[in-house]
């Protein structure tokens, strides 16, 4: 952990309250994010127990499966979920603005601008915890290879029509969530932990209730006491006062409440199937009982997630967070196009080129995120300054100099007095950057003065004339902040087309047909 974050945690311990780790909001928050609170059945892979989903805290859509191992009930649940989630995702698909992107011309091999369209906004999904993000991925994987009755009439267990599509979108969101700085799929715990330091460890911060208790303790007690209550407090029946944020449920809840309720539901269904009458009152009563239990587990997490969103929303937005959101909009538009073009679902495993591209993107975006967060937020910049990757100080002297050419350009020498210790070596000629009206101006490090002042030579953003444009050169007495890192991230070298994959990386991908066969469904897995 960076020392500055450690210090914030130490301060939080003493204060009994979380301390700010950021002064602006570093993630885009949609006007109406879709909050998704899933619960899963212990021991089963991808067997949801229920979910709450919606864009209005007061009107969640609630889905509960009274017997999670029943395949038909699971399909019905996923079909309902698909209708609601896809309605939200599709709502952004048709509002577009013209945009340009560069493509490589296949004939000339040059980069050319192509007119295209970009969705003006994109959907945002927020889950309670990091495990929730993994669960979205898992659900995506479990759904995207299913076949509907139209696609495969012979399938004995066809999936409802929208389910595979939801699988593809969940997979896309899950993949996107791995890109640093992306905001299409966020978790409430990550959002909070990015902006506040608590007086507990990173591991304990994964508990949404405990994290909120440190940031906004209800009642008068300290954060530590409130967090302890959130972690361990149980009622007289041994049930947690603050149920886990899921998707896993508390074993005590499973064993004491849920299992008997599901058993009663099973018994009522068996009695209905065997009995002479068709009075399904018993079944419906039992179903309502399960539903009540599951809703009770989800609703506190539902509210906690909204509370987290409100807390983060209260922070002023970071300027460059919007720029990163535009990348999310490109990602959304791109996937929308792939779905519309009828492309097959994402493969089980990426081919070598796609995998390398994804990794390269994540690296570039990490560099970009680090730089942008520092530029947006003096508190983050303080961490970079502490690490010697930036320095701030006052300009003590400006000496005008020019290049020796027919049309001399300004190359002023700027002396900065700073208490920071930038990692610059004499004679290295390293470049440093500062933000000038949001655009990077670069300078070359010249030398350290004897009293530790830094001498820089400005290199650009001063206009075309002999004299620099007003405001482009700092004046004596100005406060300036220079970074040793670049402000924009550069992508890596271009990768070959998938068909050109070298043999060292497995060669060109094989026939695509085998890649997306549906998962085998066995009669065995009851489901």
């Amino acid at each position, binding site marked *: *952990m960076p*020392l*500055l974050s*450690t*210090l914030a945690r*130490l*301060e939080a*311990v*003493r204060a009994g309250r979380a301390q*700010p780790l950021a*002064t*602006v909001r570093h993630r885009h928050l949609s006007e109406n994010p879709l909050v998704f609170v899933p619960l899963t*059945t*212990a*021991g089963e*892979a*991808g067997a949801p127990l229920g979910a709450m989903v919606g864009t209005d805290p007061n009107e969640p859509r609630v889905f509960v499966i009274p017997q999670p191992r029943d395949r038909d009930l699971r399909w019905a649940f996923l079909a309902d979920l698909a209708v609601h989630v896809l309605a939200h995702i599709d709502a952004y698909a048709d509002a577009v603005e013209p*945009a*340009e*992107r560069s493509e490589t011309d296949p004939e000339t091999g040059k980069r050319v601008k192509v007119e295209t369209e*970009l969705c003006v906004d994109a959907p945002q999904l927020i889950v309670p915890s990091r495990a929730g993000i993994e669960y979205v991925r898992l659900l995506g*994987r479990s759904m995207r290879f299913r076949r509907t009755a139209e696609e495969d009439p012979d399938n004995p267990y066809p999936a409802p029509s929208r389910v595979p599509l939801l699988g593809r979108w969940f997979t896309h969101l899950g993949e996107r969530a791995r890109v640093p700085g992306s905001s299409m799929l966020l978790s409430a715990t990550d959002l909070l932990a990015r902006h506040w330091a608590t*007086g*507990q*460890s*990173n*591991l*304990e911060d994964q508990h949404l209730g405990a994290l909120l208790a440190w940031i906004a303790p209800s009642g008068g007690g300290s954060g530590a006491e409130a967090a302890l209550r959130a972690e*361990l407090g149980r009622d007289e029946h041994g049930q947690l006062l603050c149920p886990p944020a899921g998707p896993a*449920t*508390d*074993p*005590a809840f*499973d064993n004491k409440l849920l*299992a008997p309720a599901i058993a009663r539901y099973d018994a009522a269904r068996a009695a209905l199937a065997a009995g002479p009458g068709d009075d399904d009152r018993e079944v419906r009563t039992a179903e309502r009982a399960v539903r009540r239990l599951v809703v009770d587990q989800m609703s506190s997490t539902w509210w906690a997630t909204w509370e987290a969103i409100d807390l983060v929303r209260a922070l002023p937005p970071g*300027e460059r967070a919007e*720029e990163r959101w*535009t*990348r999310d909009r*490109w990602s959304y538009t*791109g996937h929308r196009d792939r779905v519309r073009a009828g492309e097959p679902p994402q493969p*089980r*495993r990426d081919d070598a080129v796609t995998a390398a591209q994804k990794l390269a*993107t994540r690296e570039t975006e990490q560099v970009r995120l680090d730089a942008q967060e520092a530029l947006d*937020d*003096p*508190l983050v*910049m*303080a*961490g970079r*300054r*502490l690490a010697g990757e930036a320095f701030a100080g006052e300009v003590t002297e400006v000496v005008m100099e020019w290049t020796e050419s027919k049309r001399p350009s300004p190359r002023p020498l700027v002396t900065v007095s700073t208490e920071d210790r930038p990692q610059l070596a004499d004679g290295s000629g390293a470049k440093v950057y500062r933000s000038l*009206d*949001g655009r990077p101006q670069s300078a070359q490090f010249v030398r350290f003065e004897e009293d530790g002042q830094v001498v820089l030579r400005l290199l650009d953003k001063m206009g075309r004339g002999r004299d620099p444009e007003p405001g482009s050169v700092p004046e004596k007495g100005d406060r300036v902040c220079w970074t040793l890192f670049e402000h924009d991230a550069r*992508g890596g070298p271009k990768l070959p087309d998938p068909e050109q994959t070298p043999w060292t990386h497995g060669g060109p991908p094989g026939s695509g047909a085998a890649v997306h066969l549906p*998962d*085998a*469904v*066995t009669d*065995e897995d009851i489901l």
Partner: protein
Amino acid sequence: MQPRPLDARALAALAANPGCGRRALLDGAGVDKNALATALGSPAAFGQSQFAIVRGNSFEAKVKGDGGAELLRLVHGHLDPAAEPPGAGARVPDLTAAGPEGRAARTALALREATATRDWTLLDHPMLALEVAGSPAYLEPDAVVVHPDGRWTVVEIKSFPMIDAAADAAKVGAAARQAAVYVLALERTAEKLAGAEVGHTVLLVCPKDFSNLPTAAPVDVRRERAVTRRQLERLTRVEELAAALPEGLTFDPERTAEELAEAVSAVDAAYAPECLAACELAFHCRERARAADEVTALGRSVRGELGALTTVEAALAAASGAGCAEDPTAAALHRAARLRAEALELAAARPRRHVPESPECPC
């Protein structure tokens, strides 16, 4: 009270925090830490959902069904494809006996016979003995397979899924650490037997994708085995720990919480947040660590970073400039505190800047 025997999970957790004398003593003495933690007023939140247990048992029964044919086929296919494939009537010796000692002896006998027979043999839930920190521990792996060439392979059957031939890394890691303990225990038996060898690659059997069909992957546990062995050897012997304790010390859960807290604090603990996932007493130890103002309560990395500043108070004093001038950590903290204060002040009155233009499509 009946002593609680050490199991592989406990051993693996013990090996993860070998410096903890409290855990070593309580585990070594067979104290029921769950009951103790409840009596101390900080009950642990451990437990397993019956859904998971039912699912796990039914999956294990399916894997081992049909006389272990499927399991032997998986071992043959993944670990020993050159050997003759197991026949229909593979040997599955009966290992029932009275008490753990009896079962361990029965298992050793069955292993000897199987190694001598030179045929595929499946040992279903064998019992292995391993001496840990001076007290015996009895371990029960899911299965051990004896190959025709006399090699023994540990099989771990887990109910978490292997999706697209990949499983959750944390869960695989835990399974590997657990299997490493079994491998160590088997090696003790194999030492006494000519022609026997314990495979350092175990077979992890999991449900395939979202189905109930078993699939398997070999897991190399050499690293885990080496780590666990080193940690187990390092464990302070329980007698030595006990020798340093006051006479008449008892961890009887019937005592009051104060008496117990005093008894527990007679043995030093090494609390770190990782304990919360592995030890029943973790919440009690955390409370103690916080009360003692230890920085380790914020994580091992924090303690490592702060060096000699082991308490929150000392670290914050250093941040305010009252620390030892020669300590580089104290100086860095002081600088960090000034930078942080400056940044927070600056943020309070900050002009808005130009919003950069929209970026191009990154594709």
